[in-house]
């Protein structure tokens, strides 16, 4: 045990500090949850790419495990980003509900709630665990179990703040809920543990976007957990946006639970971060549940992004659509591990998963492994993966109409990306993403393959 303690001494100290300085109002069950999670983390530690560890086969987290980070125990007292600056950091639109978190802590000054609607709770977690424990406790840490995952265990041990969204049965959240997690520049690299819990009651509807962003260019480690419960007949639209610093380590775990006849639609957008891990698991645990999980990643330089996506069909008549698309430049590397599981009971499942990659540079690399695990016999399933360069013949066709190489390739890359961007329903968000990705389209180091 002593060895483990010294190994994670920094986290141990931070954990002690968190527990001893916790406000009196912190409910005992939360203390207990943290302690259990901390104890589990000490046993699990950070994952290693050892043999047989399929989930971490292509991603080495040693740079995270071996680095020292400081844990900001509270909202930074000094200079915080201004409201105007915060608005520029992520998507925004009039009428949205905005919750802003700085270094993992809720900032009331930067957040705006245009008025409460009946049956809708949108709050920060550290407040909600105290003010509405009856809504929080039954769901918190239920979808994201920390028994087998060191990162989830660590996040749960440091569970302190984040967003809580609760929509009562048959209610519709009137506005987009915009969650912005900002990591600020500091004298030493920081670690933060944002947490999001979304509970959509039966027949309810809600749309949310989570954005993780930093105005800094420096190194930090952000370890997030998002849990989403989609009740029977409910409809949740979700968007997750990574705009981290180019030096950042981002490990995100998302766990989604779907009830009967529920609909869950998610689109993830990934830019920034030196190392990003997106572990996204959806459990379709009710008959007739329907999910769409899309993703778009754009990597440059020596970025590394690792997507581990799981769709678990546990009940019959479910539908799932999984589409991830990657644009890879420089020496960047992407990993896509997609698993669609169809359990024995899940007859009449209709599942499709696709990963498509556009390689803009000869040094970029993708490891794409979509897989199907089917235990039912009456199902419709398909999967595929592609990786290719921009086609020379295609570019020549565009040039022959007067477009230069850079414009032509940018148009093609943008068109490739738009298949995912266009799945976002909320227009201001879609426009924002479209602008974001068209600006980011790399025009350099393009290599063309293909034959005429």
């Amino acid at each position, binding site marked *: 045990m002593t060895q483990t303690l010294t190994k994670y001494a920094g986290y141990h100290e931070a954990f002690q500090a968190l527990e001893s300085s916790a406000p009196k109002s912190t409910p005992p069950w939360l203390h207990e949850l943290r302690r259990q999670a901390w104890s589990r983390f000490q046993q699990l530690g950070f994952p290693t790419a050892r043999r047989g560890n399929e989930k971490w086969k292509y991603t080495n987290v040693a740079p995270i495990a071996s680095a020292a980070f400081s844990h900001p125990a509270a909202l930074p007292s000094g200079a915080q980003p201004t409201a105007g600056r915060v608005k520029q950091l992520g998507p925004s639109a009039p009428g949205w509900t905005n919750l802003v978190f700085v270094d993992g802590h809720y900032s009331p000054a930067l957040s705006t709630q245009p008025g409460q609607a009946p049956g809708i709770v949108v709050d920060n977690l550290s407040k909600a665990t105290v003010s509405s424990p009856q809504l929080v406790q039954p769901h918190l840490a239920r979808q994201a179990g920390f028994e087998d995952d060191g990162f989830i265990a660590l996040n749960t041990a440091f569970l302190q703040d984040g967003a809580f969204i609760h929509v009562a049965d048959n209610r519709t959240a009137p506005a987009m809920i915009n969650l912005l997690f900002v990591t600020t520049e500091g004298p030493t690299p920081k670690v933060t543990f944002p947490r999001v819990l979304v509970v959509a009651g039966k027949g309810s509807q809600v749309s949310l976007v989570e954005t993780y962003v930093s105005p800094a260019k420096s190194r930090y480690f952000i370890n997030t957990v998002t849990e989403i419960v989609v009740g029977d007949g409910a409809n949740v639209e979700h968007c997750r946006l990574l705009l981290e610093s180019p030096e950042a380590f981002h490990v995100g775990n998302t766990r989604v639970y779907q009830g009967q006849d529920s609909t869950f639609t998610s689109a993830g957008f990934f830019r920034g971060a030196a190392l990003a891990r997106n572990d996204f698991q959806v459990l379709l645990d009710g008959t007739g549940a329907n999910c769409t999980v899309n993703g778009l990643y754009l990597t440059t330089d020596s970025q590394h992004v690792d997507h581990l996506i799981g769709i678990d069909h546990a009940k019959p008549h479910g539908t799932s659509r999984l589409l991830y698309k990657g644009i890879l430049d420089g020496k960047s590397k992407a990993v896509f591990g997609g698993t669609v599981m169809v359990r024995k009971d899940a007859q009449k499942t209709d599942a499709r998963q696709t990963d498509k990659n556009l390689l803009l540079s000869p040094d970029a690399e993708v490891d794409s492994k979509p897989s199907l695990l089917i235990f039912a016999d009456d199902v419709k399933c398909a999967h595929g993966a592609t990786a290719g360069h921009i086609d*020379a*013949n*295609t570019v*020549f*066709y*565009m*040039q*022959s*109409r*007067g*477009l*230069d*190489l850079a*414009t032509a390739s940018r*148009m*093609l890359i*943008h*068109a*490739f990306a*738009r*298949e995912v961007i266009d799945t976002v329903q909320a227009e201001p968000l879609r426009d924002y993403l479209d602008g974001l990705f068209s600006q980011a389209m790399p025009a350099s180091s393009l290599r063309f393959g293909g034959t*005429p």
Partner: protein
Amino acid sequence: MPLLVIRDLHASIGDQEILKGVDLTVNAGEVHAIMGPNGSGKSTLANVLAGRPEYTVTKGSVQYQGHDLLAMPPEQRAREGIFLAFQYPVELPGVRAWQFLKAAMDAQRQHRGLEEMSARDFNRLLQEKVQQVEIDPELVKRNVNEGFSGGEKKRNEILQLALLEPKLALLDETDSGLDIDALRIVAEGVNRSRRPDNAIVVVTHYQRILNYITPDFVHVLMDGRIVRSGGAELALELESRGYDWVKEAVS
């Protein structure tokens, strides 16, 4: 000054020489037909003129409006008024035809020192051309050539021709695979674009399209060389006597 002067043009792909000394002069206001059997180098000639990078010019020169055409990148040739209607038009996945055509138009206008067209003006012009070439208006809302039938792709090339109003249009087998109605529409589109200040080079294997577009000159390309040139009557002679007749005559 002639619009286009090709002198002793040799072009290869890899180690294989395809054009083995082509000479051709095209003046503004003229329509030329280049005919020849499959594999004789017709598409190669058209593509070399448009600047396809796979081909290497090993010898000879091409003057376009008095400038060295071969020194220009493909987009500059387009902006200077060269248009190639592709034998096999290319699908642009996810790129809307409208957006593509507007971008092409803007690039060409900018090169000529003209202002960018407003979306409204462009729309009006596009609709006019859509009606002229009798193309389904829905096609310009779709992705470029994606899922288009063969005939639709060819008509889409003619739509672009009508829109961009080039000085030198190179039509590579635009007639192949078209039924008679489509052929008539394509030919009408070409005839409408005929003006005293531009020229059209029709590349074709068959004489059929020349019933609708009457050429001023007909050239026969064989094994990378123009082996015979004449007036419109040469096409008819080829139609009745076949390419073997020319082959025998030149050998």
